[in-house]
């Protein structure tokens, strides 16, 4: 059974994403709302085969539920991710019926 989220319909503010990431080429990050109604493309990360740092990409994305997408779009780009941290803070309790 999936672990129950600590958030229950609150509005969330994603302020950054941190990766433990190696590879080659550019790594692209997108944050999405439900059904991808709202999306935001974060800064690309230029990957290296070894890395001593875990870079953090700042973001400014607000949605009730947030999904992270990572990808590459060029031939022979490759990535290996061993850790993802998404920095999120609830900013309002719920979304009212308008």
């Amino acid at each position: 059974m999936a672990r129950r989220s600590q958030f229950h319909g609150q509005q969330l503010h994603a302020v950054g994403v941190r990766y433990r990431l190696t590879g080659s080429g550019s790594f692209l990050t997108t944050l999405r709302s439900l059904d991808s109604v709202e999306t935001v493309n974060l800064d690309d990360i230029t990957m290296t085969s070894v890395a001593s740092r875990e870079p953090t990409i700042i973001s400014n994305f607000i949605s009730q539920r947030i999904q992270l997408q990572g990808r590459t779009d060029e031939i022979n780009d490759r990535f290996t991710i061993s850790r993802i941290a998404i920095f999120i803070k609830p900013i309002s309790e719920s979304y009212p019926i308008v």
Partner: protein
Amino acid sequence: MPLFSATFTVFSVTGTVSHGVGNYFLSDVTGSGTVAFSLSGNCLVLNGAAPVSLVNTPPGFIITGGLSLSMSPVVAFGARRGNLSNTAELSHFWGGFGPESIAATTAGVFFSIPALNISDPLIRVPHLFALYQIEFNTIRSVADALLIAQSSDGYILTGSYEIVQNSWTIDPGPYKVGEPVSIAAGSTGANLSDISEIQLVDDAGDIHVIKQKDFAEQTGTLLTFIIPPTLNGIDGDVVVTATGGGVQFSGTVMMGKFEILLVNGSGLYVLTAGKTDDTIYENSSVNNGTIDTAIPNPSFRTGFIG
């Protein structure tokens, strides 16, 4: 004003037509057939320069007028039978440029050279690519053997031309059918927003028209279109011509060329550890190699947070 000449040569002979010395014959009185001519090879002489093929016509080439059709050596284009008498039945003898044709309605030993469609000073350049075709299809009630048409392969079209003084570039590819092709305006500031139609002429002389409403993108500096599926099976150079609305140019202008690569994938998909691209195995008439292509957007998505 620069002058050009273009030489037609025999492209194909079909039906019951046979080829004698400088002439074409119907094999029997009820036979029918077609002799088709085209501009192929290094057929085009521009202002006395060395002959070039139509594919290598400079971008901006436009025919401005003064067109006439002749033959070399000068031999009348005609039809006759046997002893050159009794040609009254030879009334269904067709010839013409491009998709249109005319009938030689006046019976006689010789017919005049077909002139329809080449008197228009704004002749569309793609018509030059189309086949000049003669059909022998309804020659009736003739008892003895027939000798049909024309004594020389050397039709020569002459006229005047200009090179439109705007510049643009087309990435020559190669492309596959369905991919976008872009025409970019050059530094001289050609305005591509006035183009109302693109014609793609394949190596068989067939013309594939893309209307303005089907352009993927059109601005003053960029025009993008998708290679239509009608070009499926084409493997080689495709000539691009464009029809302008009178702002930048009128009539039809040669824009350049690009290459279509016919790829017939094997359908096998092999998983190889550590491989970072897809490999297509070609099965074309010109190459049996492989092409490495990008894996389409490898990606992942997390579950929803919240």
